[in-house]
């Protein structure tokens, strides 16, 4: 809410600098977001007196004014406005002046006469909305004074929280100021000279929905002359961020800003027989609203209607037909209380949230209905003339009982960590208008309200009854009273203590496995990235795997995506199911920005729509592209390829204590290169029956690389990792190093090109038995003397036995068994 301090000063004395006031309000929970100097953008604009106004010698439409700005000379200024006359005081922009919007004023020739400055309209100064005439200043405006001294203001931008609808008003904020300064609040004058006929002769109001409109106060004014509001009023409304419309409409807006009470005015001539009905819309009814939209009304909508049909959407927007215009002579003032939920729903339904609906939906003080009607009538008479009909129509004049909230000073202290006596607490409450009474008899303290109201009987404890002032609709339970006490006393005075209550039980962090993976991959030179969970639907489809990576301990992935129904952009309208498109995006971004190589990983979630609701699963994604090594005379230049990613997968598996991953060829995923893609799986080292890591690793299909304009390769991996969601790592169980010598044998196995290395290794492992402790491929060879279509895979086999030295014969026997198995199972022979 924008608060011009000169206006706020109408309701409370302000003895503080704007900065100090802003600080106090902020510490009171009325956070001042900004302090704006209204008028600080008028430079070199001063008050001038029109000493003479003559016709321009060369133009019939222009005048030539002689202006005294108090500097001992008379300036000649050319002016196009017709409302000026000798003797008036007006704003003068001197040469060199800068107006709002950055417009510079210089000495300039206009049709043969040099104009020594400019006379300003209210619109040019953003003070009023009048762009036609020059702003005529009060006759006593001191000549030569900078305009900023006279009309400049300080405007506080106060962030009023949703629970404090009462403070969406100058009077409400004046009460807050009074709470800190001790000053008295002055309510605006609302007395009405009722010189017209009894209101009942003009206006009748019927409420069909008292639940949705618990109170309707109406007044009638005849004989108004609709026109612009006084300049001063326009200035205030503009400073508060509201556009002046006409004196009658401005009166209702003025009251809304002043009291927080939205008021609507109708052209009485458009209300059939002066009869107003407050009812729900009927099926098929329509209304042209003030914004000239023809709206089809939903039957939930509460209407202000006359016997012929809808006049306005109650509390939200008026109708065009009954709008107050220049032709209006009689005005109906509506000052009503509506059901907050109904107003909020209606405002959302028609996308018509306004300053008025914003206040209605927070709830309104009942007594504001008559006060608002009176104050509006008072201002209309003052600004637009007219005669007010005698009395008000009031459908429910009974004021509700004040809300009484018993509370226990000791419980307040327990909550706040303070030691305030009951008397101190009462004194603090009194400063915000919360009266207190001693509790009598058995007192039920409201601990919780809402679905399950919870009261506690204050037995043998001191209890006090707080009486909430009618405007404080936010006070309902004991904790609310505690907050008021803390707030008025100052949160800063709550001392800090370190908690000394019992500690909770130990719990393992769910981040453990993620941290281990991060440490491993960062250590291997990869950059961790975090990308959007919301992606474009096309990306989701383009990167969908035929066979998704299955989950290990997370819920299984679900193919149906979750879509956002109100996305900000289609680029981010669906929750991702794989990390691959986002990682590809990061690779492209960095390559296009000139980075020679990209090596990244992300630990993130996939999301899907399962039969029983949403499903989320964790994945590890890796992407590599471009230069694999930094430029250095010490490193060979090369680009990332599949082997790098496989190495990283093996590295992660080892870091997490899993066995070496086994790779199998994957030629059936259109996303990937059919000859350079593998599915993989790593078992737990401690439990070969359980899988620790599963996924896919491969190079992007060459056709896609071309489409993305990636020159060499893009390697991608997506993996499910046990414990990534909320797991931890079992510390490894280790063996003592062998105390007896180990024996190594190198075997070069010649096999056909089409035999996968994994099968050869598997054959060696299974035929060698338990003495084989390690198997390492150290060379691959093709060419003479091998035949066409053959290759040689050279392995180093390491053997040892527990508690004894292996004999030559034992090792030879194993090698013989391996040789036989290789020949039988993969058609291999040893290369001597």
């Amino acid at each position, binding site marked *: 809410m924008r608060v011009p301090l000169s206006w706020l000063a109408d309701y409370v004395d302000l003895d503080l600098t704007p900065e100090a006031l802003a600080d106090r309000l902020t*510490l009171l*929970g009325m956070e001042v*977001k900004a*302090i704006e100097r209204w008028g600080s953008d008028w430079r070199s604009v001063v008050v001038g007196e029109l000493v003479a106004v003559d016709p321009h010698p060369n133009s019939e439409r222009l005048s030539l004014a002689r202006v005294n700005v108090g500097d001992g000379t008379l300036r000649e200024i050319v002016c196009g406005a017709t409302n000026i006359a000798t003797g008036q005081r007006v704003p003068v922009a001197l040469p060199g002046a800068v107006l709002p919007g950055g417009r510079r004023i210089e000495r300039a020739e206009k049709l043969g006469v040099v104009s020594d400055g400019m006379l300003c309209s209210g619109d040019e100064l953003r003070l009023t909305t009048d762009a036609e005439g020059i702003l005529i200043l009060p006759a006593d405006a001191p000549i030569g004074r900078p305009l900023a001294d006279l009309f400049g203001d300080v405007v506080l931008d106060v962030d009023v929280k*949703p*629970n404090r609808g009462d403070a969406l008003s100058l009077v409400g904020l004046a009460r807050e100021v009074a709470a800190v300064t001790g000053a008295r609040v002055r309510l605006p004058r609302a007395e009405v000279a009722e010189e017209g006929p009894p209101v009942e002769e003009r206006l009748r109001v019927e409420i069909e929905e008292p639940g949705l409109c618990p109170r309707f106060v109406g007044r009638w004014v005849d004989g108004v002359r609709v026109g612009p509001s006084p300049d001063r009023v326009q200035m205030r409304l503009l400073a508060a961020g509201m556009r002046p419309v006409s004196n009658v409409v401005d009166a209702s807006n003025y009251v809304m800003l002043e009291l927080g009470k939205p008021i609507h005015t109708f052209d009485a001539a458009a209300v059939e027989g002066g009869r107003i009905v407050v009812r729900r819309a009927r099926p098929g009814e329509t209304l042209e609203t003030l914004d000239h939209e023809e709206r089809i009304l939903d039957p939930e909508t509460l209407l202000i209607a006359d016997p012929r049909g809808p006049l306005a959407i109650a509390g939200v927007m008026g109708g065009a037909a009954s709008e107050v215009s220049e032709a209006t002579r009689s005005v109906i003032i509506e000052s009503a209380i509506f059901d907050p*939920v109904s107003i909020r729903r209606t405002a959302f339904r028609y996308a018509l949230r306004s300053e008025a609906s*914003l206040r209605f939906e927070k709830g309104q003080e009942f007594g504001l209905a008559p006060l608002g009607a009176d104050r509006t009538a008072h201002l209309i008479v003052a600004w637009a003339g007219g005669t007010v009909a005698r009395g008000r129509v009031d459908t429910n004049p009974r004021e509700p009982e004040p809300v009484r909230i018993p509370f226990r000073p000791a419980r307040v202290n327990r*909550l706040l*960590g303070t030691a305030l006596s009951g008397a101190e607490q009462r004194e603090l409450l009194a400063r915000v208008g919360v009266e207190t009474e001693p509790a009598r008899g058995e007192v039920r303290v409201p*601990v*919780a309200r809402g679905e399950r109201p*919870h009261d506690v009987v204050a037995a043998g404890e001191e209890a006090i009854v707080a009486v909430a002032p009618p405007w404080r609709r936010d006070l309902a339970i004991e904790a609310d009273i*505690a*907050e008021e006490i*803390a707030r008025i006393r100052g949160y*800063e005075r*709550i*001392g*800090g*203590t*370190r*908690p000394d*209550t*019992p*500690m*909770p039980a130990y*719990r393992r*962090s*769910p*981040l453990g496995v993620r941290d281990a993976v991060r440490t491993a*991959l*960062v*250590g291997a*030179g990869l*950059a*961790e*990235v*975090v990308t*959007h*969970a*919301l992606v474009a639907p096309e990306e989701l489809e383009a990167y969908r795997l035929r066979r998704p990576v299955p989950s290990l301990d997370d819920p299984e992935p679900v193919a149906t995506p979750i879509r*956002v*129904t*109100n996305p*900000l952009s289609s680029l981010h309208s669906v*929750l991702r199911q794989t990390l691959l498109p986002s990682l590809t995006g990061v690779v492209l*971004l*960095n390559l296009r920005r000139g*980075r020679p190589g*990209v*090596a*990244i990983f992300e630990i993130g979630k996939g*999301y899907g729509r399962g039969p029983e*609701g*949403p499903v*989320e699963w964790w994945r590890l994604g890796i992407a590599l592209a471009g230069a694999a090594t930094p430029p*250095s*005379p*010490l490193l060979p230049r090369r680009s990332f390829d599949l082997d790098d990613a496989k190495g990283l997968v093996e590295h992660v598996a080892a870091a997490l204590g899993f066995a070496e991953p086994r790779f199998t060829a994957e030629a059936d995923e259109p996303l990937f290169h059919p000859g350079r893609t593998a599915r993989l799986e790593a078992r737990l080292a401690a439990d070969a029956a359980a899988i620790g890591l599963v996924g896919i690793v491969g190079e992007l299909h060459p056709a896609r690389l071309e489409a993305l304009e990636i020159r060499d390769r893009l390697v991608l991996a997506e993996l499910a990792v046990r414990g990534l969601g909320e797991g931890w790592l079992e510390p490894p169980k280790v063996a003592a190093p062998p105390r007896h010598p180990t024996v190594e044998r190198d075997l070069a196995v010649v096999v056909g090109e089409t035999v996968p290395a994994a099968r050869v290794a598997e054959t060696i492992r299974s035929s060698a038995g338990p003495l084989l402790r390690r198997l390492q491929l150290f060379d691959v060879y093709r060419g003479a003397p091998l035949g066409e279509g053959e290759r040689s895979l050279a392995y180093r086999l390491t053997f040892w036995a527990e508690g004894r030295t292996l004999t030559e014969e034992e090792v030879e026997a194993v090698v013989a068994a391996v040789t036989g198995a290789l020949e039988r199972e993969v058609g291999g022979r040893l290369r001597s």
Partner: protein
Amino acid sequence: MSIDLAGLTRQLELLRDEILAAAAAAPDLASLERLQIDVLGRKGRLTAVLRGIGSLPADDRPKVGAVANAVRAAIEAAVAERREALRAEAIATRIASERVDVTLPGRPVPRGSRHPIPETIAAIAEVFGQFGFVVYEGPEVETDVHNFQMLNIPLDHPARDLWDTLYVDLDGYLLRTHTSPGQIRVMARERPPIRALLPGRCFRYEAVDASHGFEFFQVEGLMIDEGTSMADLRGLLDEFAGALFGAGRATRFRPGYYPFTEPSVAFDVRCVVCDGAGCPACSRTGWMTILGAGMVHPVVLQYGGLDPERYQGFAFGMGVERIANLRHAVADLRYYLENDLRFLEQFR
């Protein structure tokens, strides 16, 4: 032919002189080794000469032995001396040949980087971990009930304006707008004493600029017990601010508003840019709000299954990007999800 003592001694001396000269002239270690074996080995020349000792009278034999030992020692000494000389020469040669330009850069070691979002979450968790807070996580696709209703924000409540929400095509679900629903989930599974920390990704219907994003990260904290007070909250938050921004940094405790806390708190630290003088980063207030907090609302305790008369405590929530901005002097949170490696590689 018989050899007498003098002849034998003479032979030994000749051998000595010859070998001493040869050793001094040996061009390398290998030839020196060969020379040594040739003379002193089991079948070497010295042994061959000494074979003549058997024809000497018994009295002379020790004398020859003494001479032979002296000759052997002389040869060994000469060989050793030459060996040392050759070694020194070889090392000098090696040093000369191996000289490099030590000012060249080293062989690069691959170096990765940790993303500032998880890193900042870890830093926050480390601080609160010292005070007994343990980490939990909740779902990102949440129910309206958990995200709003159980947090004392009924349907059609004006406070919903505080969270512009992204809704999904699943009835009753939305993308969580904050980590606060985790409060309900923790209370539902744990009995007090509770000290929980809930980090995670959140979503809002919010146009992207330097300080807003439609996806962002939060860390929620929750502490519930029988006597946990607002003073405890202040004390803990002061510890946190000191841990992150230095022990001397001033803090400010002021009223805030959340439907799920009562009283509610906004927590400020002295602007880390201007130190209170006033600058654009702090909207000229000299203070920066780093988190929102408050005493858990009795209705929220009820929805968590706790007796609001017996139990009380506090909750707090902070934006991870905001904390990361302050820690690393970042001015625009769009960098975090953009992932330009020139930005990310600075985080270690």
